[in-house]
């Protein structure tokens, strides 16, 4: 009976299974132990595996992320949890200057088989310092692999794939998805391909992480107007599955990219540029981009909602692309 598992439980199951299967695997991060994880992902694991392997750290993001890199170099398979992407800003030196470069700088002598999990996204009124969606920064860096599970199945199966990978893998979990239920499937899954979550022929909607359920809801709504929308879940943000995007848009001739991150120089730009490069002569309209308003995420609920793409915004933007128009540049202000 696999229906009805939550994204959170799927993640926890994945960690637990990995720890049982391989004693080199351990979890390290702030409040992963007694507290049970900020988002309760590691709840109960301390009791089962003890404090060595469910290892609480002091508040020292650079220190424990770097220690994870070192432990990976030393033969372990650490799963480092950074509470949220907001705090990863304190650890970027280690991630970018060390984890992503070591293999290359050493001429291929060293692997860093490290998995970093962190939550991303807004939507909980946590305001500007707790609501970043900075996946795009990581997706820019050679030497990293970056994935964003948007389904319970990926929450369950991306972790073992990441642990099996000899290179550093960053898993972005969207904090809004933890209570979502769904089927875990049978696994395994890969870390490189995009998935068509819904087939369609009039427009390709590209989304990732927390935007996938919204894109699907928007597609349902548009279907009632007789429009056939294909929804692609990027799954892997680095590498991007450019050929999946190409295949889809060559059929639909139109695309809209939806991104919870800010618009300028973000993920949506790369997806739009990539589709345009590969499908230029197939496109009936410019690729649309719908991203978060270019503002630090405000606390007030109505302002926060207005800042982030909502289902209605996606519907409106899709209609715009279908009409051949350009999705308005800059933040969309919602009615």
């Amino acid at each position, binding site marked *: 009976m696999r229906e009805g598992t939550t994204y959170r439980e799927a993640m926890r199951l994945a960690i637990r299974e990995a720890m049982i299967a391989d004693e080199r695997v351990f979890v390290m991060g702030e409040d992963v132990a007694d507290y049970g994880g900020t988002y309760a992902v590691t709840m109960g694991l301390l009791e089962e595996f003890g404090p060595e392997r469910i290892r609480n750290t002091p*508040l020292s993001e650079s220190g424990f992320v770097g220690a994870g890199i070192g432990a990976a170099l030393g033969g372990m398979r650490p799963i480092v949890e950074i509470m949220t992407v907001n705090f990863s800003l304190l650890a970027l030196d280690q991630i970018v200057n060390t984890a992503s470069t070591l293999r290359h700088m050493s001429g291929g002598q060293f692997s860093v088989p490290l998995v970093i999990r962190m939550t991303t996204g807004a939507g909980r*009124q946590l305001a500007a310092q*707790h609501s970043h969606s900075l996946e795009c920064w990581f997706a820019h860096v050679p030497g990293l692999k970056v994935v964003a599970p948007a389904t319970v199945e990926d929450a369950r199966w991306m972790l073992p794939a990441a642990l099996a990978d000899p290179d550093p893998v960053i898993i972005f979990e969207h904090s809004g998805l933890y209570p979502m239920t769904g089927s875990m499937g049978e696994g395994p899954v890969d870390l490189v391909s995009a998935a068509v979550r819904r087939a369609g022929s009039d427009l390709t909607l590209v989304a990732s992480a927390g935007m996938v359920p919204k894109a699907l809801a928007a597609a349902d709504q548009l279907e009632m107007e007789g429009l056939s929308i294909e929804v692609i879940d990027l799954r892997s943000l680095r590498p991007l599955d450019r050929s999946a995007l190409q295949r889809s848009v060559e059929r639909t001739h139109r695309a809209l990219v939806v991104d919870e991150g800010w618009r300028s120089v973000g993920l949506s730009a790369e997806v739009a540029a990539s589709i345009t490069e590969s499908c230029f002569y197939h496109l009936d309209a410019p690729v649309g981009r719908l991203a978060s*308003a270019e503002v630090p995420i405000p606390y*007030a609920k109505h302002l926060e909602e207005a800042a982030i793409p909502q289902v209605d915004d996606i519907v409106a933007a899709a209609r715009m692309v279908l009409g051949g128009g350009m999705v308005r540049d800059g933040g969309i202000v919602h009615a």
Partner: protein
Amino acid sequence: MTVDRRQVLDNMIRIRVFEERCAELYGQSKIRGFLHLYIGEEAIAAAILPQLRSTDAFLGTYREHGHALIRGVPAGSIMAEMFGKATGCSGGRGGSMHLFDASRRFYGGNAIVGGHLPLAVGLALADTMANRSEVVTACFFGEGAMAEGEFHESINLAALWNLPVLFCCENNRYAMGTSLASSESQTDLALKASAYGLPAWTVDGMDPDAVAAATAKALTSIRGGGGPVFLECKTYRFRPHSMFDPDLYRPAEEVEEWKQRDPITAFAERLTLEGVVDADVVDAMWDAARDEVERAVVEAEAAPFESIDRLLDHVTTQVRS
């Protein structure tokens, strides 16, 4: 400077009443996001903040309602902020973790643990370079912040440059669910701080008199050009870390033991014994605090939300036309 001990008691009561109401309002979904209560720790803000001058600068953490209140930010504008209203002290953009008040040199409300420590150094540097004499920057932080690199870098800069900073560590023994002993190889925090070559003292943070006395000494030294001082106040939070915290990491008895040391009860008793206040005075304080908070709630309820048209305001200085 001598503190008015009655005022200190009153301060504690105001914070307590304000925050207990916040907890209720959270239950009613009037307040959202993260809400971190200071209940149990009131003695610290109550005894230190009255000793700061309006020219001094102040920085706190995300657990800063009490500090804002005692710094003089009107309860109504704090409450409106937590309701997400346009009249809130941060225009509804900040919420509980980001209370600000430029007119009172209150620089927030910061939700990155340790993130405000470098700002304190910079503010003190500005005061020093601009020859604003006797001005102090007071920066409050939890003991959890001391493991962060930003603590290390900031306290070194302040000590190296002899800047007028009061580093006030509110050591409530836990950083979320992580106990001090599982966070610091050196749990004597004043000793740890003293290694940077600045005066570092520990006081009982449940005792407002002790806090006030140490603060007075520290401020005199800092205002006199003696450079930064580190003050550890040992305290305890009676509530979970935030409204999301299941509070699984500490024994209920430990919480109970500390609650026996409730700083408000203890200080009210002491002042009563000493004849500084009597039961009527104390009751009147509670009543006034309740009034203040109820007025704040009414004000916050009545206040307007910001127009969505102004979503993009305050990103850069140029306001959209």
